[in-house]
């Protein structure tokens, strides 16, 4: 457990050194500013326009960062062989693998915090503010970013970062269109659809959509249920990745 904590801190520190993550933050802040200007073009509930736009920007930034971090965190250390010295220490391979996921989780939590602060500041300017529903939605987005990171870590064991990023986005796309997958499967589509439905999480569960804009928060039990569903899927991918990494020749 100590090794997981030490290595997670290392993963977070390494992520803080990745310049591209600051670029993503800068682009997200710029898009939020654009959202603010867009909101000025409407009469009435300007905050809803900004909230709509801002939540989308935050979702893209958060998932993008988690995917980018997941595809590189482990792969880079394997390719640069910096993992050799770490794995000469009394560290279980599982601890090493899980710490990457944990580190990305901590980093994306901080990232979600910064993005939320930007958005709430913008909402205050246009007369709105952060509602419970908004923070619930950011929490579920963070869990989606954990799913993205765990899939990215798993795929990075086989694929180069570019290809694993595209594959993660494909899985997330399928996850957000789970209903259509089920519909097509029920219409007697290819057996592949059943497989796809089985191996992808239903990510619509983690989206609050209009509930945020109309300030209709989830009940505590429903929020926990949805969060648990997302976390469960993320842990499934972590478990699979760990099983592969455990016997991988480095």
């Amino acid at each position, binding site marked *: 457990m100590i090794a997981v904590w*030490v290595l997670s801190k290392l993963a977070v520190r390494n992520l803080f050194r990745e310049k591209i993550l600051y670029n993503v933050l800068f682009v997200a802040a710029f898009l939020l500013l654009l959202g603010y200007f867009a909101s000025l073009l409407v009469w009435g509930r300007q905050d809803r326009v900004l909230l709509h736009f801002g939540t989308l920007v935050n979702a893209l930034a958060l998932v993008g960062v988690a995917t980018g971090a997941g595809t590189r965190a482990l792969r880079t250390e394997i390719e640069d062989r*910096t993992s050799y010295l770490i794995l*000469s220490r009394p560290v279980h391979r599982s601890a090493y693998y899980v710490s990457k996921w944990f580190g990305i989780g901590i980093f994306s939590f901080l990232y979600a915090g910064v993005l939320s602060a930007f958005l709430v500041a913008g909402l205050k300017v246009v007369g709105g503010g952060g509602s419970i529903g908004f923070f619930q939605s950011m929490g579920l987005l963070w869990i989606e970013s954990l799913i993205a990171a765990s899939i990215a870590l798993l795929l990075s064991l086989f694929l180069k970062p570019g290809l694993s990023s595209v594959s993660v986005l494909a899985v997330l796309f399928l996850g957000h269109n789970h209903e259509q997958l089920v519909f097509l499967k029920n219409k007697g589509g290819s057996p592949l659809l059943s497989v796809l439905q089985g191996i992808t999480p239903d990510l619509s569960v983690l989206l609050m959509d209009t509930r945020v804009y109309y300030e209709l928060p989830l009940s505590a039990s429903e929020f926990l249920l949805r969060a648990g569903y997302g976390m469960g899927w993320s842990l499934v991918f972590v478990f699979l990745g760990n099983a592969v990494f455990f016997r991988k*020749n*480095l």
Partner: protein
Amino acid sequence: MSPDESPVIRFKRPKFSMKGKVLVTPFEASVRSGECMAVLGHNGAGKTTLFHLILGLKFPEGGEILIGGLSALEFRARSGLGYLPERPYVNLDWGFREFLELHAGLAGLHRDQISAEVDRVSRNYGLHANLNQRLRSFSKGMLQKAIFAQLSIGDPSVIILDEPMSGLDPEARELVRSHMSEWKQQKKTILFSSHSLEDVELLADRVMVLKEGNLQFVGSLSEWRTHS
């Protein structure tokens, strides 16, 4: 001081191949506790692969390597091994202190022991004044010494050195030799590879000679000279 006769590392016919090429052919041998064993062979003979198998970085397809009666992976995960890789595989963006603190943390040292241990090992290798520098600013020789400093953290009982003298100036070589002699006196089990027979003569109790993944010889250097 003669090494303890009980074998600490036992090679039980490990086999490893990659992309159809056999890199380590099954063989039986052992390294005794407290022994300093030199692994000799040309480039590509399988020395580094053998070290990776001991460290559990690679897994044998057949056979096994036992350390202290446990599988190599299990021993490493429990006790850790001191390891110096053939090249300085470190993240150069790290600071030297950060690098040592990381390894002290991984070696299981308590928070208040870490700083004393970092001070001790950095002084031992003459790098105390460089603690706040980034590894990127280190010369090749300094990096090699930095990795030596990290491997002595946590007092490992088994030490694997892959070409430890590579890139070192004569003064640093002397420093490394004296540390290796000290480890020998402390009865640590050492495996090292080298292309310098002078180092082997000075430090090794026995030699293990590999050729294209095959074990050719295990014994003393003088026996090897007679043999070859």
